[in-house]
């Protein structure tokens, strides 16, 4: 295992220390592993909390700041944070208007956030939750854990963050979050496995001439293993299942071409070119885009595509100022 780390068990604590040193505008609670805005929101504004396992940087800590999250809880690598982290964070960011929990749909995240919300309720804080489940690689069903929450989380945190920043109330913010979640879909692929530091070796073996289609963000194998293909074909294998799941024509779309952590920007731009060309052919109008590493899977090479069906209101919120380590514009 080749990583810029010391002992595997110290990766999270030491990375948070570096984050804190690099971003004095953040208030990093190293004991509780909670990343907070240093300048808290005004009284009466809705707080936004997210969090999840680490290894997806910049998500979530990198999206804490004006116009996005008020706090993020960092779990161990690929392991949901715990309810008491959520309790501490919820309490810290509540400004009397309640707190929205943004949860990615994984059994662990959902259960821990549920318990965290119960604890926060015992503290007298009104908590609403949105569970993001945008991954079309996974079949949705009442009898399973349902679809995973992946790339849409980034877009949702930005848009809902703008709504909370401008003073919308908890019900409105929670409804908006649910609406965004209903209108977004993602699909990912891997050229290589990632290596969890504590495991010390790649999560799966992938021959040089194969790739995984339909991966999530935890280094889990995908839905199928197929022969390595040119970027053009990979783009089709990501875009087609998304368009088959939902109609994205007729409204402007926000598109993210996300890198999984080890794919360089020169490749991500190339992939974006392929994806944009396919979307144009399919009649999808791209209003805004993001290209880069936003929700990663440690050192996995690969990428994912996220589409969000937008409208004037969502675009307005998207364009609103945001000042975080991972996303910044307008200020």
């Amino acid at each position, binding site marked *: 295992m080749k990583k810029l780390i010391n002992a595997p068990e110290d990766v999270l604590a030491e990375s948070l220390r570096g984050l804190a040193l690099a971003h004095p505008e953040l208030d990093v609670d190293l004991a509780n592993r909670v990343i907070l805005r240093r300048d808290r929101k005004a009284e009466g504004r809705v707080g936004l909390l997210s969090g999840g*396992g680490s290894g997806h940087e910049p998500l979530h800590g990198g999206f804490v700041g004006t116009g996005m999250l008020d706090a993020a809880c960092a*779990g*161990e*690598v*690929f*392991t*949901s*944070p*715990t*309810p*008491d982290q959520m309790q501490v964070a919820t309490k810290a960011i509540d400004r009397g208007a309640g707190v929205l929990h943004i949860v990615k749909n*994984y*059994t*662990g995240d959902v*259960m*821990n956030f*549920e*318990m965290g919300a119960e604890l926060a309720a015992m503290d007298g804080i009104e908590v609403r939750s949105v569970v993001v489940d945008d991954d079309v*690689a*996974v*079949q949705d069903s009442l*009898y*399973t*854990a349902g679809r*995973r929450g992946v790339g849409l989380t980034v877009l949702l945190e930005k848009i809902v963050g703008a709504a909370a920043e401008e003073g919308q109330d908890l019900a409105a913010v929670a409804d908006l979050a649910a609406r965004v979640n209903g209108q977004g879909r993602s699909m990912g692929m891997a050229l290589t496995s990632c290596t*969890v530091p*504590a*495991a010390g070796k790649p*999560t*799966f073996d992938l021959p040089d001439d194969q790739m995984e289609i339909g991966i*999530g963000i*935890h*280094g*889990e*194998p995908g*839905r*199928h293993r197929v022969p390595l293909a040119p970027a053009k074909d990979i783009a089709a294998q990501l875009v087609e299942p998304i368009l088959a799941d939902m109609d994205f024509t007729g409204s402007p779309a926000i598109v993210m071409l996300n890198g999984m952590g080890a794919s360089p920007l020169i490749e991500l731009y190339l992939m974006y070119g392929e994806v944009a060309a396919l979307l144009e052919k399919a009649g999808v109008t791209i209003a805004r885009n993001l290209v880069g590493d936003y929700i990663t899977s440690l050192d996995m090479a690969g990428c994912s595509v996220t589409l969000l069906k937008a409208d004037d209101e969502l675009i307005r919120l998207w364009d609103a100022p945001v000042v975080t380590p991972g996303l910044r514009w307008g200020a």
Partner: protein
Amino acid sequence: MSTPHTIPLAVLVDWLHRFRDAVVEKRDWLTELDSAIGDADHGANMARGMTAAVEKVEQTTPAAADELFKTVGMTLVSTVGGASGPLYGTLFLRIGASLGPVTEVEPAALAAGLHAGLEGVVARGKAEAGDKTLFDAIAPALDALDAALAEGRSAAEATAAAATAAAAGRDATIDLVARKGRASYLGERSAGHMDPGSASATLLFDTLAAAVAG
């Protein structure tokens, strides 16, 4: 006063030590199982959680079964995260609540506690038989435990039977297609691999039997 058939608190504490030792020792194996159909952290999760839980028990030396299991459950909830944190945490919390402030436990009471624990797991995770989760090791283990006790077998015999049944349940997860947890994302590809949670749950019954046997 302890009768020959009751299990004293010290044995329950010993169980937790043994379970901690087992998940630490089998940590890489549990992670390997989780690599195949999950995210390669189950060994680290269980080892981290049980190490913290046993440390906490040693610091606080709980005086009764309810406190003991509450300490373990709370520590797991607050140190593990992931799916196994709330699930194992709830399991132990419910066991503690069911046993109450006792310093020795009748085998039947322990079985009732374990049933309460499993109900907690189901309440949290909604798993059913055949979903390829730790339920599939625990449920048959409890059936075997109940049956053995009903037949009038000793606590040692009954917990040994439970461990055997847990292992059989664990092995039976290999052929299953997962419907809950992370492995469910793999669909048909999840078949052919043992569920990591059922493997750690089997260690829970192995160590219970070993502790009771003394």
